[in-house]
């Protein structure tokens, strides 16, 4: 079955900037004052599972369909190039979520 998600390991401040950019590009929050409110596009960093390599970086899986053509170029590429966000394979992602064996 084709992979449906993309997997990332993110530095905290960079992720927070990325999440803010996503909110701005999608117009979140919307529906405020109604019951169908969407407050944010991505969860806050402190809700992410931390990688088990003591890097302090957070792990997140994102459905591929959620990326627009400009997301990669404008939001992700500079952070990946700077080493602040790493894109992982599913297998690599899962390795970072499991406790390291002694």
């Amino acid at each position, binding site marked *: 079955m084709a992979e*449906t998600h993309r997997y990332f390991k993110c530095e905290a401040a960079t992720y927070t900037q990325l999440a803010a950019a996503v909110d701005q590009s*999608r117009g979140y929050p919307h529906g405020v004052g109604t*019951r*169908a*409110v*969407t*407050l*944010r*596009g991505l*969860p806050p960093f402190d809700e992410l599972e931390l990688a088990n390599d003591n890097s302090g970086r957070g792990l997140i899986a994102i459905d591929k369909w959620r990326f627009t053509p400009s997301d990669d170029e404008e939001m992700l590429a500079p952070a990946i190039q700077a080493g602040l966000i790493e894109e992982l394979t599913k297998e690599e992602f899962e390795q970072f979520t499991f406790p390291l064996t002694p």
Partner: protein
Amino acid sequence: MALNLSDLTSPSTSDDVLSDIYTTADQGDGIALMIDLSDNEIDATQSTALYQPVAYVNSVDGTFARFDGIDDRMSFTLASPIINGTVFFATKNGCHSAAINLVAGTHDFTANELSSVSYGSSNDLVALYLFDYAVPEAQISQLTSYVVSKGAAENSSP
């Protein structure tokens, strides 16, 4: 066209606690709200877009909420009374009913899980019912027929 499963409300299930999915979302939209159509007003919400299931409403696939099987989930808060009865999942690949005991508090659900207990394996939810009593088999059969007529599958895939 908007996702609107409000016509799923069946007279035979008028005393359920969390009932059918209802929202206003177009095909492909994230679902932020599923309204409880019973009088109990226990709506389910998801305010983070990444965790929202996606609305399917088209003539090919039918009408349902697709969870991604990774982190999509809806949440509802149960104050009182505590639920000690039956849960019924209607999904695109089967219907599942089971006894359930839910304490007061916030509970998450997907198309195949409620409060960390699994029910089937589908990611496509047509309707979710919670009853605060043990539902007799005859009513389960009636409910199954009803949700099948709305796009759910009767039996689980192997």
